[in-house]
């Protein structure tokens, strides 16, 4: 039975690849002019520093941003944001600025889906903050629940200055090793939204309707 299946898989694969190979011989596909560059090298020094650009883009998307000068400042900020709320967080040791010390009694990756779904606020770190689009990048991993940035109605992400990069390409270059090792990578660019009904903008459809970024030193 299993070998029968395997045989069918291979047959479909071989058939498709044979058809494609044959098709390539007659395919009418335009060729690039010889002088056209194949890659885009952006100016390495952007006109505007990444931090300012990130904040500007993020605000335009409706992301609330807070800039903190010290680790203590970040902790205080998070404390005021999560106070009296049910929190679903990444494992504390994976959060920067010793945030574990202020987050107690929180729902974690290892807890049940039902408990996670009841959380009112999700707290995560991030692996990159992309300035030109105001985007947060998060690689999957142990203790870094992907659902923490998706299920609760509010998402608080903590970023370090060193997470900032100009573009997604730069992020890919900087994190190529980690990216290869991760099963998935999520880029989040603002609150969840839809415009499916008469192109009227509605926020918080499936993901969080509120996204807050706290940027620490």
């Amino acid at each position, binding site marked *: 039975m299993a070998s029968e299946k395997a045989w069918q898989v291979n047959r479909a694969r071989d058939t498709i690849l044979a058809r494609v190979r044959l098709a390539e011989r007659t395919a*009418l596909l335009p060729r690039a002019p010889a002088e056209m560059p194949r890659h885009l090298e952006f100016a390495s020094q952007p006109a505007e520093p990444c931090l300012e650009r990130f904040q500007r883009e993020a605000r335009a998307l409706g992301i609330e941003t807070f800039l903190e000068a010290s680790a203590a400042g970040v902790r205080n900020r998070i404390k005021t944001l999560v106070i009296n709320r049910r929190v679903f967080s990444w494992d504390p040791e994976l959060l920067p600025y010793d945030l574990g010390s202020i987050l107690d009694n929180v729902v974690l990756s290892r807890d049940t889906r039902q408990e996670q779904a009841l959380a009112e606020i999700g707290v995560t770190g991030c692996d990159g903050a992309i300035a030109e689009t105001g985007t947060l990048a998060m690689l999957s991993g142990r203790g*870094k629940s992907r659902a923490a940035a998706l299920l609760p109605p509010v998402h608080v992400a903590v970023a370090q200055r060193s997470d900032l990069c100009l573009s997604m390409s730069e992020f890919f270059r900087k994190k190529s090793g980690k990216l290869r090792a991760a*099963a998935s990578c999520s880029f989040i660019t603002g609150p969840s939204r839809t415009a499916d009904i008469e192109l009227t903008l509605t926020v918080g*459809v499936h993901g969080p309707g509120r996204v807050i970024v706290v940027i620490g030193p």
Partner: protein
Amino acid sequence: MSSPFQQRVLAAMGDQGLRSALDRATAQLGDRRKNAFSSLDHSDLIRDISRYAKMDLLRDLSGNLQRFEHALQDNGAQVHWAEDGPRANSIIVDIARQGRVKLAVKSKSMVTEETHLNEALEHAGMEVVDTDLGEYIVQLARSRPSHIIAPIIHMSRADVGRVMEQRIGVPFSDDPQTLARYARERLRTYFLRADMGITGANFGVVETGTICLVTNEGNGGMVTTLPRIHVVLMGIEKLVPTLAHLDLFLKILARSATGQKLSVYTTLVSGPRARDHESGPEEVHVILLDNGRSNILAGETAEILGCIRCGACLNACPVYKNIGGHAYGDTYSGPIGAIVTPGLKGLHDWKDLPGASSLCGACREVCPVRLDIPKMLLSLRKTSIEQGLSTFDMRMAMTAFGIVARSPNLYRFFAALVRWVLRRSTQQAWVKTAPGLAAGWTKVRDLKVPAAKNFQQQWRARKRGK
């Protein structure tokens, strides 16, 4: 008398609600696109690089598919190949059965529309729910999406309210915020229960074996995160070479589709979660679907496989604006539908589609990868003539044209004949109802009668007079 396409056109054009909805939506989306591109430095170059990256990739599609397959397998994903829709569906049904799946949730995907996957899963006794808001409404209304990006562009907010009231028993509302909340509450329970997530792929990155998905609502994230099993159904043409290229494609995709710099959720999936990780699917399956694509690659419209399904050409197309998506009769509508549908399903039953264009070129202008859509429409028209798919009158008329218009004397004679017939039929300078081929003309406008003395006669008379 009139073809199914013409009947659908007439039905759409008689629907005032549809037409005003289309007018509003396409104009808005078109404006947003234009503004978004003004925020992109080097946009022309980015479009060119993306275009030719795609063309070069397609030139060696077989090699790229194998590299992609290996990269996916290295990441721990299972790769399947499907020659056509039914086979793709049965692969997915098998995966679902083996995984004891009772409920599958889907994020927005055109290719599962193409294969009618929902029906196949339901037939196999499984529940399947579309989770993109627009697709969910479409599924509740038992309809089909009419726009690649905005599936319910044809519905008003009150239409949506009525569908939800009737099908899920919520109080009627025509407030988009409330309607979205209904959907959120309802769909949340499905996300939490589902055993299988089904998605398409916006891009597949050959270099790294990565599937890229974009959504705005976050359903793409949910579907690839919460269920135990993630199944990707993708056309074999959806590849891009490297992550650096992916960055460029994402820049032009969101701008062209919705006028955003980047969609809210961009999810890269490379494989199942590691054993000691708590979140993400345990199994990732990727099904590579041909279903006519290799056939398109072999022909004159191979270029269309570079399409990234942004929908910009729909919003720009004056024909689409008048008739909407359903009139195109299949999954893909608008200018790309007019090329993709005959390519996937054969010209024989779809020859009307390439004909229904004034070749105005608005689509080519907005296409982020600069597909020469008018050129492809023309070559499909040519192929349909070569396959003998035109009417007898048309064939005769064109054969006659070919003979007459290369002989100045015959040409003069026939022009004089037409002039005589038309001028004899009316004393006026205009004909209100014309016979034969010209009847279509006078259906909606008057026909100017040929001049008593044509230009060459006037020119010669003037020369003699000088």
